[in-house]
């Protein structure tokens, strides 16, 4: 199995050195090859499993339970101004 390590890294926003890319490529290929063994099993008559537990989703009534905790929640943010998070400029 061939893996485009650079593309995977780009999608995950992970910066790789050439050495890391060279090392991780074969490792990822090996992992995927191992998982690939599953495709040998005939699953035609087995319904797809979306979740390992056979439970239905619990639902929540539409009632506001959270108040304004902005000050506490913004503590870990590197930069804020007037209640807004500040990030490097993003524009399309």
């Amino acid at each position: 199995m061939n893996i485009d390590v650079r593309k995977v890294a780009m999608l995950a926003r992970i910066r790789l050195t050439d050495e890391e890319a060279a090392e991780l490529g074969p490792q990822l290929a090996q992992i995927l090859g191992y998982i690939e063994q599953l495709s040998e099993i005939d699953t035609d008559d087995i319904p797809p499993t979306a979740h390992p537990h056979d439970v239905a989703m619990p639902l929540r009534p539409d009632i506001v339970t959270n108040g304004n905790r902005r000050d506490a929640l913004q503590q870990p943010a590197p930069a804020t101004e007037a209640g807004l998070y500040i990030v490097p400029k993003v524009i399309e």
Partner: protein
Amino acid sequence: MSWEVVIGLEVHVQINTKTKAFCGCSTTFGAEPNTQTCPVCLGMPGQLPVLNMEAVNKTVLTGLAIGARINLESRFDRKNYFYPDLPKGYQISQFAVPLVEHGHLDIPTQDGEKRIGITRIHMEEDAGKSLHEGLDGVSHIDLNRSGIPLMEIVSEPDMRSADEAVAYLKKLHQLVRFLDVSDADMEKGQFRCDANVSVRRPGEPFGTRTELKNLNSFRFIKQAIEYEAMRQIELIEDGGEVVQETRLYDSAKGETRSMRGKEEAHDYRYFPEPDLPPLRITQQQVDAIRDGMPELPAQMRARFEQEYGLSAYDADVLSQTRELAAWYEALVAAHPADPKRCANWLANELLGRLKELGCEISASPISPQQMAGLLDRIADGTISGKIAKDVLDEMIQSGKDADAIIEAKGLKQLNDADAIDALIRQVLDANPQQLEQYRAGKVKLFGFFVGQVMKASRGQANPAMVNARLKALLDD
């Protein structure tokens, strides 16, 4: 040979629940930035989503209203991409099995009604808002919107003109408001549209499509689709080829432009959301939601025609929104003698005046009962329709009842035959020349005399009586 435009639409509709899709944060619009957030919608590690029951019910209701299939088991998936207003790095959406599939909406076209297929409605969560304007080198992020429940309503590529696309959107907009599943205020971003546009020679396979983003008003949608179709046609006719890509509509320049660079990142790597087991609902729940279905616009229109004897046009105007329809029915309840008069005065007089004030019916300065009070005075002959229009102006301005205004201004209609006869004689005496011409055969002057008598009565004489008495006195 002609070209055919092929359009499919993806509409994101904010569901008007009190709380977000997966947490108990408020969804109130316009709150101070980031005051309606919690660890779940901020994407803090270890937080678990719990789905809002009401958002499910409203999506099911919408599905039923478009005659769609409701999947009793549906699933949630993660759509992965990086953007600062998406704090988790993925959006919880429904990819493989949506809650609603295979519906339709009938739209009016020049050639009569046309059925537009709706492929699916899936539930997902909204992202936050990025603010760029007036900022140097940075963007600001407000996550109050992060996690608000959305329905993404995906149509089949069934529309063949920008006008059909707009007709579909207007129908859909009206429907979600009638169902009260969304406030659908486009200016607040509660009803947003992306359009997939391609062109082809009629009968040939679909051409390569482009996706238009940032279409936030009916007018811009029409302009953007028309511009993009023309761009594609000119490109092909000049020997070029349409590239499948996302294009942004620039309303200031009236053109679409490529959003290159975003394409390669379009690898969303969907996978089942491990934090949420499948969504299961029962047929009984679906049936209960169906039982609670409000009257839909088409049914209401038909009922207005039948029950109140309205013209198709008036019935359509008055069933545009639930608020307006409710106002009309409250007016009829208070003035039951003449539903058509109610329709005329609401549609032609009150709505026009409110429009000038930039005011919705829900914010009307006068109530249906006050309006009925005015119509009662027309019905019993106290005032003429012409005077009533002036009284309505005054009512809107002051908020006072019709009776109070009629009383204070002495506007009561003159219905006394002797008094009207006296006015007529006065007018005839004052215009001997016209009287001579009239008697010599210039019967057109009848209208002149009516006008003079009405003027002499300061508009208060009963016009029907003036006509009848004038005829009698002139011809005797």
